[in-house]
């Protein structure tokens, strides 16, 4: 019996096992996919003259469903696998810890987010191809729509890694989801009534859809007192980059924790 170890081959095998375990009966994914037709059917009814508004209005439900999907996926494929001892089995094999957690992130977050992004792009393109729109508007709209989803997903992943119990991780993630959503809403209200532009940019770091809407749908973001927020292209890109930088830092913390401290 010969042996020729390849790190890539080892990773691909773990990826294959994880994919087949997580998406064996993709019932929730199927439902989410069906909901993606919702915007196509009702696109003419959605009064959104701008792509950015269309993406944030029309994909509210699919994004919500994807969030649930990711939450359940992480609780059961990460926390439950730690609880049952499966993660311990995997990291006994010659697989780098960093590779393993990246595979888990790819399966738990990457797959549903990529599907959603693709669907958003296709449906929006179909809805607006007659009117015509710029590709950069589509690109930044989707990027903003997915940013917060990724942020929530990374928080769920952190909880799953720390709690290590499927059911409990799911319960805590749902509770935290509500708390974070309410906190962001309260902050947005505060920003609106304060009428301070700087706060608007700060809140856009957590919810970048606002700044993309403010840039492309010019004149739509009006604060009390008639203050109109009209960010420049550079400001919009900087806020988006800032938002994704927060996500990258969160991701780096998760990977570093898994590599150095995580004990199944």
């Amino acid at each position, binding site marked *: 019996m010969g042996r020729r170890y390849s790190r890539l081959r080892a990773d691909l095998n773990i990826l294959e096992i994880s994919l*087949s375990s997580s998406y*064996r009966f993709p019932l929730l994914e199927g439902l989410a996919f069906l909901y993606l037709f919702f915007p196509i059917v009702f696109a003419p009814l959605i009064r959104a003259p701008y792509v950015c508004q269309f993406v944030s209005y029309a994909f509210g439900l699919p994004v919500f469903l994807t969030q649930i999907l990711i939450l359940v996926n992480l609780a059961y494929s990460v926390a439950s696998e730690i609880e049952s001892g499966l993660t311990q*089995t995997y990291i006994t094999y010659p697989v780098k810890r960093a590779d393993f957690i990246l595979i888990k992130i790819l399966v738990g977050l990457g797959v549903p987010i990529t599907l959603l992004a693709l669907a958003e792009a296709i449906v929006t393109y179909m809805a607006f191809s007659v009117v015509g729109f710029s590709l950069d508007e589509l690109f930044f709209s989707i990027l903003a729509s997915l940013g917060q989803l990724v942020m929530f997903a990374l928080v769920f992943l952190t909880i799953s890694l720390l709690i290590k119990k499927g059911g409990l991780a799911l319960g805590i993630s749902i509770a935290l989801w509500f708390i974070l959503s309410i906190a962001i809403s309260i902050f947005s209200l505060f920003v609106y009534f304060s009428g301070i532009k700087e706060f608007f940019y700060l809140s856009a770091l957590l919810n970048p859809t606002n700044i993309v809407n403010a840039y492309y749908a010019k004149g739509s973001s009006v604060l009390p007192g008639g203050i109109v927020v009209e960010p420049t292209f550079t400001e919009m890109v900087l806020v988006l980059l800032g938002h994704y930088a927060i996500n990258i830092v969160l991701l780096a913390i998760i990977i570093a924790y898994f590599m150095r401290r995580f004990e199944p």
Partner: protein
Amino acid sequence: MNPVINLENVYKRFGRVQALNGLSLQVKPGTIFGLIGPNGAGKTTTVRITAGIIRCDSGLVEVFGENPWDNIEVKSRIGVLHERVSYPKNLKVLDFLTRVANIYGVSDAEKRALEVLKLVDLVNAKNRAIKGLSAGMLQKLGLAQAIVHDPELVIADEPTANLDPLMRRKVLELIRDLHRELGVTFVISSHILPELALVCRDVAFIHKGRVYYQGDISDISSKLGGYVYRIICGKAPQVASMLKDRLRVKDLEYDERLIRVYFDEDPGPNLFIAIGEIAKEIRVKVESIESSVVGLEELFRRAVRSG
């Protein structure tokens, strides 16, 4: 010969629990090494640190001369059977084992997986989903995945846990046969001492996160072993004290009714004569006198007591 595993002064704490408390042990290559200790002694923590799954707080941990934490080189040379076996339950037995062989880079992985399934007597279940396997079959699959890449060292944590007596014996015989056929070094942890005595020659007694004794079972027997007599009688403390004055006793333990006397050499009828005389003198009733060679369980108790 360099040890396969070298642990020196290893400490590990989980919250308030000090799981390992200065544990040191060495495992020589080519042996079946037994880690013996009661539940909570620190066996599983030792196994997990050795397999690179968790880190110690302080101390030296070396497997094949290297730190096993996140070390692919070390991991590809060892196979691990965990106490709590868990595999992707929807996969079929052969599919799973083939994938494990692929992870280790085994050439012709499926052929090797089939060979190993034959070796552990699980070939008839090759097309069954893992979730449909019995506890004994799961344990065999655990062994199969631990040896599929022909490792130099296999670490098995409580390999007979949750099995019925017949299956326990089968699993231990399988380990013994694999050791004989493949020449693999095995480290087996267990709290069921007589079972380990069947397969292990080198043992370490672990208690409260420390190794109390390590060596060849026969060496330990000669140092701590000998002959033990259990005497049930009235006024046991008084009888014990008088017995010590009359015979060459190695060690003595007693409570109100039971005396345990240890001898280097079998005292034979002298003990019965002495007990008879003492019973007459202080007028006590002797209910029973039983003798036996000191077993592994007794050795463990004594090793811990002697510290």
